[in-house]
């Protein structure tokens, strides 16, 4: 693959262009059809009935009353639910999380589906669900760290060790000139994508057709194939547009499977759309953490040790421990490093991936604690971070594939005006009498790659086709991946037919872990390279072609033509080559995956620096983030507009993390108290007066052929820490429990 790419150079002009979203007009005019916009003929409506208790059993359901309601067609309960080939609790692979799909009467968390009512109208099914009037046998619940046993988990995240480190942390702390020993709390966050989980499912015999938002169609196919005992190829998923994913649509959730089961039960197409309140349970959430940070520094401000201890909660029935230690593994150079976890079991749904899982929660604690240590050392927090800059990855000692973090600090600081920051807290007051503070946080996220395949085709009319089952969650895959594809074929965008978003296309891997552009992009790069190579091969063998015998000198492709590399006056168009050969088209296939030699020997991460200004009312405690400047380096930028949007969106979620967002569960019942968008606060426009992202140039020749890292999640890291640190700088108060609501600042 690599040889081919060096032999044949492609010149394109799409990558790097600031294109707007290609599907934008469809979206703003309502022509883009999301999953729930589909209405196959004869479709019925399915509505979930969910549990009011968080632990126990359903003892009665008035199915007769529901069925008697006009328009109700059927009620699916554990008694009549279609039999499954796999028990939903079977752990068939590390990404198979346990689902609640009416396997029994047990209740494991509030809002767990306990029945599905199918009706001719949404209204009828909704009322039917009410008429079920469930009775329960409820048991005591645990939803707080105070109320249960702690244990050491076998692994955290997906298979990461629960304890890692090097050096003697206790000695490092003992010998430190300055120490901090503090605990940061981060709450649970629940997915609130604009588009809730939705599915339209239709069985055609043993074949299953579904419209559902997915960040991982092939994984969903595999999971569904296992559950329903059919072949993955017999499952056709359409997921061209998602109204937000953020990790919540990475794995198919129980309610989506229930929609498919309902369709099977009634033998008709069925639509199931989750209600906003129902999202607070079965679809994964960001786990709650309590992070105990112990850090030491010598007299020069050099770190002597970091001990990052994380207590986090998973569900009572499955394991996912929010992997908050990742940031500590990668950010600051220290002779002694220890990260360890303890877990607890709560009566909630299983926590899962939410934008920057682990990094987001860990970042607040690490950035807060680093700031506290800088203060203890009497150092400027940015100078302190530079003093402890990691030249190699702290946990592993590996060199970075690239790391332009110094440039991020420098350019971000310059843009923000950091140099004028007074060292001490509570030194700045504005004209309105508001306390003003400035804070910084370092952003980081690993440059993952998964596995993807793509198919490319060059046609005899000179046009190209690229196909890959990629996912556009709104981040811009339709546009950015098409830019890579067009460049790969050396064609203008309008000469390219680009297909993504259905499961019959080559598997693009999961659109998660900020890895999609890198992984799917690499597959496209290789597939288009293979197509060009195949075309070049045809030409070079053809005695009548000006490219005949180009051989080792190779050819280059540009603007729908191939040219001899050593003599660019000799070339011809794709169309000419194919028609002379009597071919309709030529095809190339390619894979995208991390280069094992690189991952073994190098650490790959994106980095950034976020600067925040806050204003705090000294009497009333109200906090406003008045300015945010983030500078990020994440390898090659395919489309600056899309990348900037990812950074801005991430930073805004950082504001949410610092000031607003918190899922509150009633400690007595385990029921969500604020499970709706009026009470579950996220920032509104008025909370974000000024936010700016700077794209820092970073060339990475190791990470992958395109030099792409990920940009989807990094923006949320660093930001919350910067805000919390700015609040301290404004007020002199360290608030260590997120979100920082005004009652925590009434001093």
């Amino acid at each position, binding site marked *: 693959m690599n040889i081919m790419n060096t032999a044949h150079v492609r010149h394109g002009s799409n990558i790097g262009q600031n294109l707007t979203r290609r599907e934008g007009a469809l979206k703003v005019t309502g022509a883009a059809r999301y999953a729930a916009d589909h209405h196959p003929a004869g479709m019925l409506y399915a509505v979930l009935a969910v549990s*009011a208790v968080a632990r126990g059993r359903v003892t009665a359901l008035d199915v007769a009353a529901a069925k008697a309601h*006009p328009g109700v067609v059927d009620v699916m309960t554990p008694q009549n639910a279609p039999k499954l080939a796999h028990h939903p609790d079977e752990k068939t692979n590390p990404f198979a999380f346990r689902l609640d799909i009416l396997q029994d009467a047990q209740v494991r968390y509030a809002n767990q589906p306990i029945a599905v009512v199918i009706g001719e109208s949404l*209204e009828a099914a*909704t*009322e039917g669900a*009410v008429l079920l009037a469930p009775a329960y046998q409820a048991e005591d619940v645990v939803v707080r760290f105070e109320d249960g046993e702690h244990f050491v988990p076998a692994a955290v995240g997906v298979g990461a060790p629960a304890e890692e480190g090097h050096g003697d942390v206790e000695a490092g702390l003992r010998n430190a000139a300055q120490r901090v020993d503090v605990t940061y709390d981060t709450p649970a966050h629940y997915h609130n994508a604009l588009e809730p989980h939705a599915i339209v499912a239709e069985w055609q015999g043993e074949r299953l057709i579904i419209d559902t938002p997915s960040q991982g169609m092939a994984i969903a196919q595999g999971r569904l194939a296992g559950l329903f005992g059919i072949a993955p190829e017999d499952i056709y998923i359409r997921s061209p547009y998602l109204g937000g994913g953020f990790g919540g649509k990475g794995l198919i959730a129980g309610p989506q499977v229930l929609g498919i089961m309902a369709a099977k039960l009634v033998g008709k197409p069925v639509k199931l759309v989750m209600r906003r*309140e129902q999202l607070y349970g079965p679809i994964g959430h960001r786990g709650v953490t309590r992070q105990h940070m112990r850090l030491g520094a010598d007299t020069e401000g050099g770190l002597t040790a970091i001990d990052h201890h994380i207590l986090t909660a998973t569900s009572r029935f499955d394991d996912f421990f929010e992997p908050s230690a990742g940031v500590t593994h990668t950010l600051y150079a220290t002779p002694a490093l220890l990260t360890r976890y303890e877990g607890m079991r709560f009566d909630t749904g299983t926590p899962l991936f939410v934008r920057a899982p682990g990094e987001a929660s860990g970042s607040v604690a690490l950035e807060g604690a680093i700031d506290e240590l800088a203060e203890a050392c009497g150092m400027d927090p940015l100078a302190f971070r530079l003093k402890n800059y990691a030249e190699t990855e702290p946990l592993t000692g590996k060199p970075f594939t690239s790391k332009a973090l110094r440039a991020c600090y420098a350019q971000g600081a310059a843009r923000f005006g950091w140099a004028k920051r007074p060292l001490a807290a509570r030194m700045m007051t504005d004209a*309105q009498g*508001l306390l003003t503070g400035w804070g910084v946080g370092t952003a980081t996220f690993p440059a993952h790659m998964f596995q993807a395949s793509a198919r490319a085709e060059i046609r005899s009319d000179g046009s190209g086709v690229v196909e890959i089952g990629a996912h556009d969650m709104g981040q811009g895959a339709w546009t950015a991946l098409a830019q890579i594809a067009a460049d790969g074929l050396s064609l203008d965008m309008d000469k390219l037919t680009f297909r993504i978003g259905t499961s019959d296309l080559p598997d693009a891997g999961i659109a998660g872990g900020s890895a999609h552009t890198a992984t799917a992009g690499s597959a496209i790069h290789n597939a288009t390279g293979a197509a060009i190579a195949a075309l070049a091969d045809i030409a070079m063998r053809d005695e009548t072609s000006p490219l005949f015998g180009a051989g080792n000198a190779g050819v280059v492709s540009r603007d729908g033509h191939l040219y001899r590399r050593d003599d660019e006056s000799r070339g011809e168009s794709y169309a000419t080559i194919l028609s002379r050969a009597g071919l309709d088209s030529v095809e190339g296939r390619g894979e995208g995956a991390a280069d094992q030699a690189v991952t073994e020997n190098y650490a790959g991460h994106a980095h950034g620096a976020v600067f925040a200004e806050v*204003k705090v*009312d000294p*009497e*009333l*405690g*109200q906090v*406003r983030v*008045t300015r945010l400047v983030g500078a990020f380096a994440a390898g090659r930028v395919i489309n600056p507009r899309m990348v900037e949007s990812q950074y801005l969106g991430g930073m805004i979620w950082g504001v949410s993390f610092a*000031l*607003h967002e918190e899922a*509150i569960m*009633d400690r*007595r*019942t385990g*029921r969500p*108290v*604020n499970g*709706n968008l*009026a*009470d579950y*606060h996220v*920032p*509104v*426009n*008025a*909370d974000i*007066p*000024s936010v700016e992202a700077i794209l820092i140039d970073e060339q990475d020749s190791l990470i992958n052929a395109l030099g792409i890292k990920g940009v989807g999640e990094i923006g949320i890291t660093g930001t919350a820490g910067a805000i919390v640190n700015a609040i301290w700088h404004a007020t002199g108060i360290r608030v260590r429990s997120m979100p920082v*609501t*005004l*009652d925590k600042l*009434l001093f």
Partner: protein
Amino acid sequence: MNQFEYELAPNVENAVASGRSNGAVFLAGGTNLIDLMKGNLVRPTRLVDINRLPGLDRIEFLPDGGVRIGALVRNSDLAHDPKFARDFPAVAEALLSGASPQLRNAATVAGNVMQRTRCPYFYDAASACNKREPGAGCEARGGHSRLQAILGWSAHCIATHPSDFSVPLVAFDAVVEIDGPQGRRDVALEDFYLLPGNTPERETILAPGELIVAIRLPAQAALFAGHARYLKIRDRTSYAFAVVSAAAGLRIEGDRIVEARLALGGVALKPWRARAAEACLMGRRAGREEFAEASMLALQEARPSGENEFKIELARRLVVRAFERTAIDNTARLSPLPASIVNLTEEIQR
């Protein structure tokens, strides 16, 4: 949502007659009622749509300087009426600090006054709530109670009334005009709301079938036009209910206060008029010390109903701030972020 009958009332008489029947409710903008129906929290058997009632969508400026606001006037229309905003700036400010532009366009003034509490347990059909089901118990007690009442609550209910609009209305002696089976009557808004006591299910003095037809502000209210403010503390800059809020008005002659008004929002199941605080400012200077004294009096009877003790101190500080702003500001011009403590938008624009 249960099945219900729907009726478009052609006139007040018919509306009142239909509204009397068991299980009937009036439908105005629907921004609160429909949500409650979807949540299965209220299950009316008949919706009496009052949106077409003739004549109820007018703002009438009365010859004496007061104003009569028809029940169906939309929140936005009232707030953006230039004369209304000039004469009653605190009321306009309160309206614009509530909900979102879309909601304010749909919401009526009577619906706003009549909106139900935002107690999270009231909104959760699976929780016990004396308001929804008398005698069921109050799950908010001992639960998550950060935003619950600090004044006037009872063992049976600790909720607050969420309306912003009603707070300055109570401060400035608004009167509710009611039409009903027994004919017309006027009730001061302050007396219109009921404290929970042991009947939290009874929220207002309205009898079945009684309809709000208008809300009146007396001429005296306009005397505060130069010194009236509504300040609202909330957990985000916009689109959030009040943690606590205050409507304040001052009439100042020379360097003396000749009359003061104060009502607090987010503290009780009705807007809380603080008469003792008002009285203590009479004849005094408009200074921080005086306002601090008033703030102590205003919260004299306050006590936490749960994990909300901070609201007492916060409310005191807000009272001081509200009076300070009221004393300085000529508020005839509405700020871009109405009722905000901090006006960032203005600052950024500057």
